[in-house]
């Protein structure tokens, strides 16, 4: 009996594997893709990358300008993450099953957050570009909307998980809703909240590069400019600097996280 169950299980796995291979072959032949030649091209691509993207003396002379734009991007990311987090916290309090005061309001809050999260940042950038033009505000709002959506959802989850007991207890003491939130819910979740904001700052710096290309602001714009005018060494310097900044922010935020959690 057990043997039979095991055999059926095995047959399922085999069928799934065969199906995957067939799917790959069908899809591959449809778009003329060949895995072998794809992999073979990787070393050549890497060689080209390392030959062209190594920063040289010409690109180093651009350093002050690049740093200026990079700082602009970092500050933009921080500003978007912090302002979005405040709005996200309010929406999360309205939308969490534990703290919501009104089912309708809660559902509306969740829907708004869901929309702003599920529209990709590149799409936000293009939509906002139409209304704000090539402006730092476009970059800010793009990052703002996506961060807001993600944080609202994250905050709702942490509040739902940790705060039902505290809300119950403080309500039973006669505390008002604002008191329950500020004395119970926020202290309960502050570690998670700060941790999520730090994470969103990191994500924003990474995605602000792409957003910058689309909206013509910050370091993304500069990268796009150098890249399209074939000044690869300067573009390479930008990549290195972005990687360095992300690493620094990641290390700092990990250190902060360890302290507060």
């Amino acid at each position: 009996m057990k043997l039979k169950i095991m055999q059926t299980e095995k047959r399922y796995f085999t069928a799934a594997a065969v199906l995957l291979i067939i799917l790959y072959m069908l899809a591959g032949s449809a778009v003329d893709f060949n895995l072998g030649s794809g992999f073979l091209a990787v070393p050549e691509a890497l060689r080209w990358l390392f030959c062209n993207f190594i920063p040289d003396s010409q690109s180093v002379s651009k350093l002050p300008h690049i740093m200026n734009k990079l700082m602009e991007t970092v500050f933009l990311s921080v500003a978007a993450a912090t302002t979005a987090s405040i709005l996200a916290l309010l929406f999360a309090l309205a939308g969490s099953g534990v703290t919501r005061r009104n089912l309708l309001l809660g559902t509306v809050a969740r829907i708004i957050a869901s929309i702003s999260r599920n529209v990709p940042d590149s799409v936000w950038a293009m939509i906002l570009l139409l209304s704000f033009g090539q402006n730092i505000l476009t970059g800010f709002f793009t990052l703002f909307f996506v961060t807001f959506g993600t944080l609202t959802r994250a905050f709702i989850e942490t509040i739902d998980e940790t705060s039902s007991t505290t809300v119950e207890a403080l309500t039973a003491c006669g505390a008002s809703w604002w008191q329950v939130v500020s004395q119970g819910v926020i202290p309960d979740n502050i570690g998670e909240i700060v941790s999520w904001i730090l994470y969103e700052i990191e994500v924003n710096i990474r995605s602000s590069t792409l957003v910058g290309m689309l909206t013509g602001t910050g370091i993304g714009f500069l990268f796009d400019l150098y890249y399209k005018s074939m000044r690869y060494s300067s573009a390479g310097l930008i990549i290195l600097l972005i990687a360095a900044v992300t690493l620094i922010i990641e290390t700092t935020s990990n250190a902060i996280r360890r302290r507060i959690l």
Partner: protein
Amino acid sequence: MAILEISGLTKIYKSTIKALDSVSFSVKKGEFVSIIGPSGAGKSTLIRCINRLVDATEGTILVADEDVTKMNSTELRRLRTKIGMIFQNYNLVEKRLVIDNVLHGRLGYKNTLAGMFGRYTREEHAEALKILKQLGLKQYAYNRCDELSGGQKQRVGIARALIQNPKIFLADEPIASLDPASAKLIMDELMNMNKKTGITCLLNLHQVQTAKDYSDRIIGINNGRIVFDGKPKQLNDKIIAEIYNTPLQNE
């Protein structure tokens, strides 16, 4: 004199599940009453209806002659300050200090802003420390709650309820998560408080023997209905079997 009068209390969840089915009883001032019954019998719902953590579907609940079910939010806040409550899982803000958690018991008395920013008066602080001292927790006043043991956390819960200066004390399975020694300590503390200050106590309990040892009166609930209401010594094996749906053992 009855401090709590419940009549015809019915609670229906999701329009089909009947958690309480026309429950009626009254509790005299200063009584120590235990509610026993199997899991899912409606004990927690019953206790939560009294301070409106759960809204009753039907029936009236009079606390000191005021109908709880008809109160607006302001009246409700005032009522809740008069009812202290402790929980099975202590329900403390674990990341805050012990003294902060005790002072939470004062929130119902404060205006919203003062409460939000935790601005308590010198007297409230002194009172919190005094209560912690009574409960043997003075040396932990400035520790974070998550550093305490289960029994200590439950005592913080009691302190938070006491600083409310309540007339009624509700407890939802107060010792279900504790080891026997801590459980005894908590029960002794509750009884001691009941005898000394005359606070009416209403407890949900899982342990029949504990209920018999400490209560003035026991109420047995099964499937949302009261099946027993009397003195501990009237509670015999036959009635216990009826409350818990277990067949009576022939010995």
